[in-house]
């Protein structure tokens, strides 16, 4: 019987199959790492803190607009890409980091699937 941690890692591994990925992580809304598959070049704790700050800010900004909560955040830069999806029910988010080669379309759909899977585990 796989442990909770193994189940989370298994879900995250789906993201690791996407070309151009550089790691993924599950982070609680308050910035604590739940699970990480990030490339060692990243400081996972620091990244989790900074990313959760971005999610919180996005949440506040969208609230001022009066239109619910953010569903997805995508960042596409000259050197890299970031996809963040939040699960509101369980208050965590999944982040996928990638190189410019990362296909955002595939990343978005896969991250949606992973998020659904994680909702049952976490």
């Amino acid at each position, binding site marked *: 019987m796989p442990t909770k941690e193994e189940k989370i890692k298994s879900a995250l591994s789906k993201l690791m199959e996407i070309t151009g990925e550089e790691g993924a992580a599950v982070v609680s809304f308050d910035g604590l790492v739940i699970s990480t598959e990030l490339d060692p070049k990243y400081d996972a704790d620091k990244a989790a803190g900074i990313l959760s700050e971005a999610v919180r800010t996005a949440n506040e900004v969208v609230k001022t607009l009066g*239109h619910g909560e953010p569903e997805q955040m995508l960042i596409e830069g*000259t*050197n890299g890409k970031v996809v963040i999806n939040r699960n509101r029910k369980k208050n965590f988010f999944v982040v996928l980091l990638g190189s410019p080669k990362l296909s955002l379309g595939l990343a978005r759909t896969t991250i949606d699937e992973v998020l659904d899977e994680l909702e049952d585990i976490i």
Partner: protein
Amino acid sequence: MKEEVFIFSSIWHRNRIVFRTDNIENYERIFSNIRIFIPIYRKLIFCGDVPKSIKYIKGANILNSNDLLSLRNALSDSIDEEEYGAPPVQILFFNVTETIFTKVLRDLDRGWIAFTSCDASILKRNSFHIYEKFPIKDGYVYLIDPVPKDISLERMIIENINNKSEGIKKFIIQMKENEIYLAFHAIQDELKTKNKITFSYLSEILNMREKTLKKIIEIGKRETRMDLSPYIEDSPKKIIKFLKSLSFIKEVSLAAIFNERDLIGYAKFRELEFSTVNFLRLKKCIEDFSKAGIDIGETWYFSLLTKNKDILIFKDNYTFCFIFEKGMNFILIISEIKNLMESVNLFEEKEIV
């Protein structure tokens, strides 16, 4: 309609106006027709043969003297005091003779309306240039100062009040005049606390179009002799062109363009309560990614998708921020915006403002 707009705009800008009529009994009627255009915050100063009914109106200040030099000095002092914060004055001089034009009004460069039986030749003899002349019932109007270049706001107000009751007319005109007056003083105050201020910034915080802001500066200058325009930066021409072209994309609700932290372009296409400072907060978060070794590069797109609206921030030489209505394919909108940016060469080096 055109004449009414000219009179309204001239009074609002404190231009000098002469109403010529041969019968002094017409003064009262003419005054009551134009009174609606005189901002209520102005101090009214009546001179000359003031009709009885006008003498007793609320807030009337009567200033008369047989010594025309003293009278001129007193009126001149009242206008000068505006520079030190006194409310702007509006002089209404009744039954003005040639001597009064020569000895009193010729030296006052703004803020007076004369009621006279003198004709245009007398005005010309006194070095007054007549920029506009048109007939009214029982007389003529001579505009001694040029009609302001942009009178679209005045035209719009006159069109709006057409066929309305006197009360509604007064409400609409006075509300706008007071709004402009208060906005000028608000801008003055804001300038005391900020090193740099842009029209886009004012447009957002005062919820006014740039055109209206220019009107505020212009009227404020006429009322206080204080020219605020050198202290407020215009948006670069390319940015204005780009913002105008955005109106063709129906999904765009709001666009804001920053040069570092300065808002240099702002356009709101739908009613929306949203402070552009929020864009800067999001931008800061993205820039902080590098602190954790997440290198996305100097140029990036950030999109935040929500249920009904999407937010897009594009960081390049400037930071372009947008709010879109959900509807059209997001990728298509981005590509349309990119095309517009390219068409006005926004990716080239920054324009010097």
